[in-house]
């Protein structure tokens, strides 16, 4: 497939098949390696439309990509054309209850213009992840207990599907990991900034005490985030070796009300991944465990000395590993406890064998309608 067609359409500066570009777009944060044929830096919807029609005629595989920070291989190419959305990063409209953005907008860039407004989906990597990627994965953040996930805040998504049709959709296209089409424009709900906030940090020596506190906090409507750190993670992070619950309240129920101090507490939580990663625990899992089996799961991690942290308030945990081989046993345990593998950070290539058949069937039907030629993100999810 010649590059000339693309150069004529998007200009030489917005397409490359040079080895340096093909190499750096051959993977993503999953560390799985694929083969990139070309990279196009998206700048205009009309170009993207032409590219989809061309891909249909020539049976090309197109891979939409934001920051490439997904952990499941959702942007790994297979002799594909990677469409990088980093340059489509304009905030188009900001009103009192919604915002319209291009897909390449970085979440923190959006945060910085909101002033007295608030977009409540705040994942850990807000300084890098793009709104398009967050829609692709149906991202979740620290405040999911109260505010839900990305799909709950999407009003409209403009997308060119695999048939080449440019249409506006509701949240039904959220979480589809680029297998239906190229998202070109997004309208998101926003809400009022929370002024009355406070926090608490609870420390425990016994897991049973942690669990009863979590149960109590879950039923408290003021609580908007409950984050857990287990003993192994605390130790590796250089904290006192105890169990931690970091809790945020909407209102002044918590003892910590100073915004700087609250920022410091969140900083400690956000640095856990850094600390674990620098100790070689670089592979992060994201199981959802049913309430009745949460205790058993936490004891299992404990006996295996698996460092773990995460939003226990929604029954999701992030156990971390230094070696992918060790994860198989974790999966067996999650399934035995009737949990969900890959509950928050996507399915991609890594977890597609574990997606349940009902969801797969639903996705296959959508794919048949919206991308019957299978030119969008080949081989992912289903």
């Amino acid at each position, binding site marked *: 497939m010649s590059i000339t067609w693309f150069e004529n359409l998007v200009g030489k500066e917005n397409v490359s098949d040079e*080895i*340096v*570009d093909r*190499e*750096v*777009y*051959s*993977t*993503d*944060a*999953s*560390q799985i390696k694929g083969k990139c044929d070309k990279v196009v*830096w998206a700048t205009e919807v009309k170009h993207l439309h032409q590219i989809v029609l061309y891909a249909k005629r020539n049976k090309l595989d197109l891979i939409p990509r934001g*920051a*490439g*920070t997904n952990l499941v291989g959702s942007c790994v190419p297979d002799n594909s054309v990677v469409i*990088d959305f*980093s*340059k489509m*990063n304009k905030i188009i409209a900001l009103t009192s209850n919604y915002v319209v953005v291009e897909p*390449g907008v*970085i979440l*923190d860039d959006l945060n910085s213009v909101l002033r007295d407004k608030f977009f409540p989906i705040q994942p850990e*990597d807000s*300084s*890098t992840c793009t709104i398009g990627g967050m829609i692709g994965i149906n991202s979740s953040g620290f405040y999911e207990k109260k505010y839900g996930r990305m799909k709950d805040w999407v009003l409209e998504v403009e997308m060119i599907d695999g048939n080449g049709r440019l249409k506006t959709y509701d949240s039904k296209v959220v979480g589809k990991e680029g297998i239906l089409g190229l998202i070109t424009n997004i309208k998101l709900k926003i809400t009022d900034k929370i002024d009355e906030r406070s926090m608490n940090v609870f420390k425990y020596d016994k897991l049973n005490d942690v669990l009863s506190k979590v149960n109590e906090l879950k039923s408290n409507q003021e609580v908007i985030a409950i984050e857990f750190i287990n003993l192994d993670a605390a130790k590796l992070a250089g904290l006192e070796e105890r169990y931690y619950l970091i809790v945020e309240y909407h209102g002044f129920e918590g003892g910590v009300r100073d915004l700087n101090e609250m920022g410091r507490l969140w900083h400690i939580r956000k640095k856990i*991944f*850094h*600390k674990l*990663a*620098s100790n070689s625990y*670089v592979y992060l899992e994201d199981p959802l465990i049913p309430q009745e089996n949460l205790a058993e799961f936490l004891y299992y991690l404990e006996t295996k000395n698996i460092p773990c942290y995460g939003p226990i308030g929604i029954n999701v945990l992030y156990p971390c590993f230094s070696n992918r081989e060790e994860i198989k046993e974790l999966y067996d345990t999650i399934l035995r406890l009737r949990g969900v593998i890959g509950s928050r950070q996507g399915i991609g290539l890594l977890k597609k064998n574990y997606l349940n058949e009902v969801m797969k069937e639903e996705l296959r039907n959508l794919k048949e309608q919206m991308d019957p030629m299978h030119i969008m993100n080949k081989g992912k999810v289903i």
Partner: protein
Amino acid sequence: MAGVDKCILCGKCRADSALLRVTGKEMLTARGKALLIMKGILDKVFYIDPLNDVTVRSCPTNVEISEEVRKQRERLVENGIETKANRRMIDNIREFGNPYGSLEKKDIKEVYS
């Protein structure tokens, strides 16, 4: 501080790359450069590296990309791969003791950095 073998491709360093914001090009980020180094791809891209891109504040595994890039530049020069601007700078430093060339020309009124 760690070498590129410790890079876990998390992409956190994208937040530090001012050039990325303008160009959208992943190869200008520390992650991009780490991938090229791991693969042994020697390219002029290692000359494009303003200061704010070499100090990776966000890196969870402390990859010291600036040191790695310096080594790549050494290799580039050894292999005779240079940019014109780089060659001119080196010649100027050798001949005049500064990267701009003779100050006799008096055509440099102000210098910003």
